[in-house]
């Protein structure tokens, strides 16, 4: 005998998931009504009435979304003040980075050579941006901007912060009071203050620290602030990993006669760092989002180039469209990273 039509197929699914009980039925109807009120006008605005390759006057005359603000200024938004005919270089750098990231996703590729590939990759990205070698024209760092700057700050920030964070975590676990207290004070201090205060520090206080006549460019200063900030968060994540390694591992290493550094390098850290891979990806995500704060100290990252475009009288008033575009870029990047971190968590979970 077949089950009744109300229990299987589309109707059965709807009954089980949308209309189970009077409360859920009312809820479904209310939500559907709200969606009906909001979605069609939004689609109308964003897709049907919209302008994609028009002039700003045409946009101002119509009442749809003006995506032309993006298409007309895409090169400035993505690359900032980087010389116009050299913009293939940052583009190539981004392509290298994305290729490396996609290649590293597969855990079968996690071997020693991947580490060296990354070193070469990062170096060539830096070289492409900066130039000055192999016949590449040199581009001053104050002309760097847009998406490459955002990626540069977050990728280099995390790469440099990781070793610092691991050292801080080891320091915090150490039995030596002086080293332990320095680490604890540093970690708690940094985690207690907003990133913006460190960026302020890098832009107004740091120059005072340097001897007369020495100056460091402001991208590097912001980068240092981001590294110092991220390191404290990595330290806490790594500490969680260190605590997850059982006592027996330390004792076994001791009984083999390994000294502290050998114990850490050969026994503890390989296990601890494996545990903390997924939370490290979360830190990469927040570091990536946090780089947008450099707007406040007037670096031309993706957000700042967008704002600059919007301050052009021709394109004034189309902030919503421009910000939605930038939000989509951030969203796509973060969404892939967080999906990846969830997948890793599942794959690395060897417990039952």
């Amino acid at each position: 005998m077949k089950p009744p039509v109300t229990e299987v197929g589309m109707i059965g699914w709807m009954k089980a998931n949308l209309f189970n009980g009077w409360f859920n039925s009312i809820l479904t109807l209310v939500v559907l009504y709200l969606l009906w009120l909001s979605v069609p006008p939004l689609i109308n605005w964003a897709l049907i009435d919209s302008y994609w390759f028009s002039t700003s006057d045409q946009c101002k005359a119509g009442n749809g979304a003006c995506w032309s603000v993006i298409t007309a200024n895409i090169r400035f938004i993505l690359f900032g003040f980087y010389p116009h005919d050299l913009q293939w270089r940052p583009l190539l750098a981004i392509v290298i980075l994305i290729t490396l990231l996609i290649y590293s996703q597969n855990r079968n590729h996690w071997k020693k050579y991947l580490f060296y590939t990354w070193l070469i990759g990062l170096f060539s990205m830096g070289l492409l941006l900066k130039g000055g070698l192999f016949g590449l024209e040199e581009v001053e760092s104050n002309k760097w901007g847009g998406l490459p700057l955002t990626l540069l700050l977050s990728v280099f920030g995390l790469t440099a912060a990781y070793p610092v964070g691991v050292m801080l975590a080891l320091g915090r676990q150490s039995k030596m009071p002086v080293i332990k207290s320095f680490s604890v004070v540093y970690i708690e201090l940094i985690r207690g203050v907003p990133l913006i205060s460190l960026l302020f520090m890098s832009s107004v206080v740091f120059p005072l620290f340097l001897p007369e006549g020495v100056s460091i460019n402001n991208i590097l200063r912001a980068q240092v602030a981001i590294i110092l900030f991220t390191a404290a968060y990595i330290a806490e994540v790594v500490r969680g990993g260190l605590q997850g390694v059982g006592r027996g591992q330390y004792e076994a290493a001791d009984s083999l006669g390994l000294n502290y550094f050998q114990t850490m390098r050969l026994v503890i850290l390989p296990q601890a760092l494996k545990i903390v891979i997924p939370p490290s990806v979360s830190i990469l995500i927040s570091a990536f989002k946090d780089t947008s704060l450099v707007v406040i100290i007037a670096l031309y990252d993706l957000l700042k180039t967008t704002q600059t475009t919007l301050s052009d009288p021709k394109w004034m008033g189309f902030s919503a469209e421009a910000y939605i575009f930038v939000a989509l870029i951030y969203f796509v990047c973060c969404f892939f990273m967080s999906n990846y971190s969830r997948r890793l968590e599942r794959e690395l979970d060897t417990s039952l």
Partner: protein
Amino acid sequence: MNTSAPEKIPFLRDPAKLAILYQILTLAGVGLLSYYLVNNTLSNLERQSISTGFSFLEREAAFEIGESLIQYSAADSYGRALVVGFLNTLIVSFIGIILTILLGTFLGIARLSSNWLLVKLSAIYIEFFQDIPVLLQLFFWYAFFYEILPSPREALNPISGLFLCNRGLAIGIPHWHQAFLYMIIAFVVSMIAVFFLRKWAAKRQAASGKIFPTFKVSLALLIGLPFFTWWLTGAPMEMNVPELSGFNFKGGINVSPEFAALLLGLVLYTAAFVAEVVRAGIQSVGKGQTEAAKSIGLKPGQVLNLVILPQALRVIVPPLTSQMLNLTKNSSLAVAIGFPDFVSVAGTTINQTGQAIEGVALIMIVYLVFSLSTSAVMNWYNKKVALVER
């Protein structure tokens, strides 16, 4: 057979001695570095003839602040300006935290509901708002107020007494009346009464096993007593509704676009994280707990109150506090949209006086005090709710 004296361990292989050596090296390193930095700083300050110290706090600030909870004018001191900024940070964080907890809890529960539509919508919300930098969201809402909303003349009026326009948000409130003071007093009195009632009820239950309907009685007290006072004092009903006069609204509460955008951005962003925290907390309580509680005859309200919530809260509260701290720290982004919070006022002060070190130090101290006091309260709470294990 004579036992030889224990073999002498070479210096470089004795962990105890090495530890001392490492610590001395670290101390020396940090000491030298700070000496070098302080030395450079002092000579730089001298060259730029900037005086050190906090005496600048008493000088006249000479800049206006758009919004202030206390009386402030440009003739006041930098110290007072900073207090204004500090209060603005406090108020935005306080309101933000309350709204975030409400919205986040709602989203977290919606994420677990049995309604497919609601689950998907809240999942989309959570993923979307978590993945966009909060600063970008602030800019978006700021632009929303200034570019998309109409001028005061054509202000949106979704519900009576509430106006939305590019000058911000205006909400109608009741006219000030003596009765409200009495209502606040009545509320405080009923809170004290509830406190003693709970103590008494717990004692009675421990002694006799009889359960007193504490929750219903407390609710009745907390709502009833102020309401009764309001009725006794003549039930004042007059509303102070905002009205258009000139270019802006007068009367009621006026919220500036900066404040509204900041609050909106922070709440929508942080609520996505709070929702995940709430979801994880609720999921952490096993199904067996609910079933066991039902099987010993507890009512649904009691199951939630006595079994589920105490266990879920133990998981929820620590990450929730860190989200609240994040919200407070993120409120410093106000500087980017021109809301005069503490960081913004301190930034202006640094620009005007050149006292960069003192200014940044003040910012750090204020936020450190927030964080450290919160974590102190948290540790106390954690100790209180921790599982008692033998």
